[in-house]
Each structure stands twice: as structure tokens, then as C-alpha cells.
């Protein structure tokens, strides 16, 4: 086999392989649309499920999912960002403490979601007495997404040009002032990208939530109520409810759409904030 033949083989094999991989993806989209579209509509989004989810909509699940996400992000973002700021602004990157925390976070980012489910169940639901609740679920999810938020925040803080910091120091801004006025606004698009990554993962997460936020289909009255997330609903409809397939597919379409919307909206929002903070009073 000469050179050009081998090259040709490589190109063709690669191309065929790509088609082979795209095939299930297209099939997945086709199947979800085929089964889900007839059910999908405003009615589906705005009504409560009935008959274990075989009919009706997903309104209370959207609310539960929103609450869980809110709890998750309102814990994970401050802690994660705080950790990133501490690592970046006060510790030398090669110090033992910094490397230790870094290693711990790297390993944490690979821990399977079911482990966070076990941990959340044991600590939040049982030891802290929160039971199967949105609070337990959100906290367990926060543990899971924490390393992503720290890592991406840290990268964006480190990417702020050194000149900005030097200029702030020349103006004798305090460390707090420099962080708030210069470093964080500049780094915010990157930080937001990390939050987006976290949101996407948290929205689709199921194993963490089964034994922390629970299964209850009713609309939650407070964060101490159990609430079923969209992803858990898909799982339940697929495995425990015969005849729930079309509603499961419709829920999956909603979930995928939410992940896509979250990804685009948060990013543009952060861009606005960054521009506002940096250009406001010049």
C-alpha cells in the first residue's frame, strides 16, 4: 500500500466512522421528536401531571427543578468563587496548600454522581434531618458541581491581564476594591461559562437527586418539601410507568431545550454585566 492509498483509506475510514456516530444521534433526535412532539405544547408545560405522569403536563416539575437549581447555584457559586479567589489572590500557585486543594478538587470532579447521592442522603437527608427535600437535593448537587465552578473561575481569574492589577495597585485600590471593580468584571464571562457548565450538568442530573430531593410529583410549597426534577421524571416514566413513553420523550425535549437556553442566556447576561461594570463610570 503506498502513501496516497493509505491516506485515502484514513480519510474514508474517518468519514465513515463519523457518519456511524452521527447515526444514533440523529435517530435519538428523531425518536424523541416523533414520540414527544404530539404531547408537547403550552398545555404540557402549564398543567400538573396526572395518572403518574401518563397524562397531564410537567408544571410542578419545572418549579421543583427551578428550586433545586436555585439552591444548588446559590451555594455552589459563592463557595466555588470564594475558593477560586482565595487560591488565585492569596496563595502562591506552587504552595503546598494550593496544590492540595487543587488535587482534592480534581479528584472530586471525577467522583460519580451516585456517590454524591449517597453522601447527600446520609448527610443532608438523615444526619442534618432535612429529609427528602429540595434543600437536600440542591445541596447534594452543589457538592457535585463545586469543582467545575472553582476550576473555571480560577482559570478566568488567572486570565485577567497583569496590567489591570498593576493599574489598580497604582491607583492604590484595596484588594477588595480591585477584585470588585476590576478583576471580577473582567473575569465574569469566564466565570459565567463555568456556571453554565454547572447548570447544564445539574439540570440533567438524576442519580444525585433520587435519594435526596425524592420522587414526589406534587408542587413543592417550600424548599423543605420533596420535589421531583425533570430528569428524575424521565427516569421514572421510562422504567416504572408503562405507557409513559410519549410523556417521557416530551419531558426529555423540554430538558434538552432548557439546557440549550441556559447555555446561551447566562453567557450573554455575563457579557452585559462585565461591560456595565467596566464602562459605567469612566
Amino acid at each position, binding site marked *: 500500500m503506498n502513501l496516497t492509498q493509505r491516506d485515502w483509506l484514513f480519510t474514508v475510514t474517518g468519514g465513515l466512522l463519523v457518519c456511524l456516530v452521527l447515526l444514533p444521534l440523529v435517530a435519538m433526535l428523531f*425518536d424523541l421528536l416523533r414520540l414527544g412532539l404530539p404531547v408537547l405544547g403550552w398545555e404540557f408545560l402549564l398543567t400538573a401531571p396526572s395518572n403518574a405522569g401518563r397524562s397531564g403536563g410537567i408544571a410542578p416539575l419545572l418549579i421543583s427543578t427551578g428550586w433545586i437549581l436555585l439552591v444548588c447555584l446559590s451555594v455552589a457559586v459563592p463557595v466555588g468563587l470564594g475558593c477560586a*479567589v482565595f487560591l488565585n489572590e492569596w496563595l502562591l500557585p506552587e504552595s503546598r496548600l494550593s496544590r492540595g486543594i487543587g488535587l482534592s478538587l480534581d479528584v472530586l470532579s471525577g467522583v460519580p454522581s451516585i456517590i454524591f447521592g449517597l453522601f447527600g442522603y446520609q448527610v443532608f437527608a438523615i444526619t442534618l434531618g432535612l429529609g427528602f427535600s429540595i434543600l437536600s437535593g440542591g445541596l447534594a448537587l452543589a*457538592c457535585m458541581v463545586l469543582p467545575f465552578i472553582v476550576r473555571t473561575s480560577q482559570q478566568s481569574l488567572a486570565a485577567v491581564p497583569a496590567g489591570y492589577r498593576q493599574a489598580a495597585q497604582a491607583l492604590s485600590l484595596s484588594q477588595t476594591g480591585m477584585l470588585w471593580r476590576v478583576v471580577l468584571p473582567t473575569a465574569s464571562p469566564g466565570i459565567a461559562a463555568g456556571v453554565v457548565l454547572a447548570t447544564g450538568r445539574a439540570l440533567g442530573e438524576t442519580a444525585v437527586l*433520587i435519594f435526596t430531593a425524592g420522587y414526589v410529583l406534587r408542587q413543592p410549597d417550600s424548599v423543605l418539601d420533596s420535589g421531583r426534577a425533570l430528569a428524575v421524571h424521565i427516569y421514572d416514566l421510562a422504567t416504572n410507568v408503562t405507557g409513559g413513553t410519549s410523556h417521557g420523550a416530551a419531558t426529555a425535549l423540554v430538558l*434538552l431545550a432548557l439546557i440549550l437556553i441556559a447555555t446561551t442566556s447566562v453567557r450573554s447576561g455575563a457579557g452585559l454585566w462585565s461591560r456595565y461594570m467596566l464602562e459605567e463610570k469612566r
Partner: protein
Amino acid sequence: MRDQVLRLITGLAALVAGLLLLLILAELVRASWPALTGLPVKAWLFSGHWAPGDGQFGLGAMLASSLAVSVLALAIAAPAGILIGAWLHLSAPAWIAVPLRALQGVMAGIPSVVYGFWGLITLVPLVNQWAPPGAVLITAVLVLALMILPLSVLVTDAALHQVPARSLQAARALALSRWGTFRQVMWPTVRGSIASGVVLQFGRALGETLAVLMVAGNVIRWPGSLTEPVRTITANIALEMGYASGLHSQVLFLSGLILLLLVMACMLLVRGGLRG
């Protein structure tokens, strides 16, 4: 003054984040301690007999199933991902490569429960035609491979970006073919990153719960054939944690601990050994 407060608060956040892993490990050890000390190792690690009602807690068959499913999924996804990553770099025109890269990112973001759902409604009936009941080991392997593949492509793609432009220019000057450039010039440079990517994906596969739970059939047995249903260690936790109590629940925590230690070993291997 304000700086001191900020330093204290962020330091506290860093402490929480840094200690979380140890806290999880400690909590799993604590919750599984009675099983760990009360049961002989032989009874839970090597036995495949799982009958919590009769006091039989053999995790062996499920551990073996987890390993089998993960290794097989990786055996499909890793080579395919590396080849596609290389193809994207060397052969694909920009109008294919750019959207395809974005698509891999989207695929990596699809929740595992959606992969599992699709596997259940489409793949299981398909496999059922030649290997009833359809929800068998090979189905789980295929779904898992599909989930891991985009990660494999993205890791390979990112690694190939690291190859110095000078090496590529030299390869072109020597009139190496595309395949030759990949094999002789790029592969030696990116081997390490790709190997650590494969180990990371193995950890991910081992810990995957929902997608595997939904399509693997969940019958507890030693994995012997591609066309028989199996239950993985993760699926077992998800299926039984809801009603387990006493020793049963402690053994489930123990299985979580084993899983955590396996995944931690993968992560530490990547951090320590492979990256140099």
C-alpha cells in the same frame, strides 16, 4: 480591614471546597463501617450471591459487571474517538470540522438519563430481535460507548492542538502523508494526554448509573456473555437504596465506597503517573 474579612471568607470557602472530598470519603467509611468490620471480606468482595433478605451480600458479580461494561464501552469509544479526533484535524474540511466539534460538545452535554431513555425505547427493542430480552450487557455497552465517545473526541482534539506547529511544518517538508504525520509526529506527542483521557473516561464509565441502569436488564449474575442481562454496582445502589435498611444499607454504602476508591485511583493515576 475589609481585605482581612474578604480573605477570611474566601479562605473559609477554600477550606470547605478542599475538605469536601475527605468528608465524602469519611462519611462513606462511617456509614459502611459495621458492614466493613462485621462481614468477612470473602463474603462481600468475592461472592456473587446477593440476597439481602437472606443475609447474603456478595458484591463480586456486580463489581465484575461494572468493570466488564466499562472496559467494553471504552474498547469501542476510545479508538473510535481517537480516530475521529485525528480525522477532524487532518482530513476534515473546515465546514465539516467546525460544526462537528460543536456537535461533540452538545453530545457531551446531553444528560445520561436521556441517553438511557433513548436506549430503552430504541436500542432495547432492536437488540431484542436477536438477543432477547434486549436489555442485556451489549446494550449497556453501546449506550455507554455513545456517551463516552464525544469526550474521547474532544480530549483527542484538544491534545492534537498542543502539537507544535513546527513539527507539523517539518512533517510537511518531509512530505509525510496525513496518516504518517499522525502516526509519526503527532501520536508520540499526544500519547500521554490521550492515555490520561482514557483513564478519566474509564472512571466516568464506571460511575455511570442511569444510562446503564435503564438498559442493562439488572439481573445479578457474573458477566459471561454479551447477550445476558447484568446489574452494575451503581445500578444496584440506585435500585435498592430506597428501601434498604440496617446491614443491607450499610453494604450499599460499602459498594459506594469501593466505587469511590476505584475512581479515586483512576484520578490519582492521571494526576501522578501519566502526566509526569
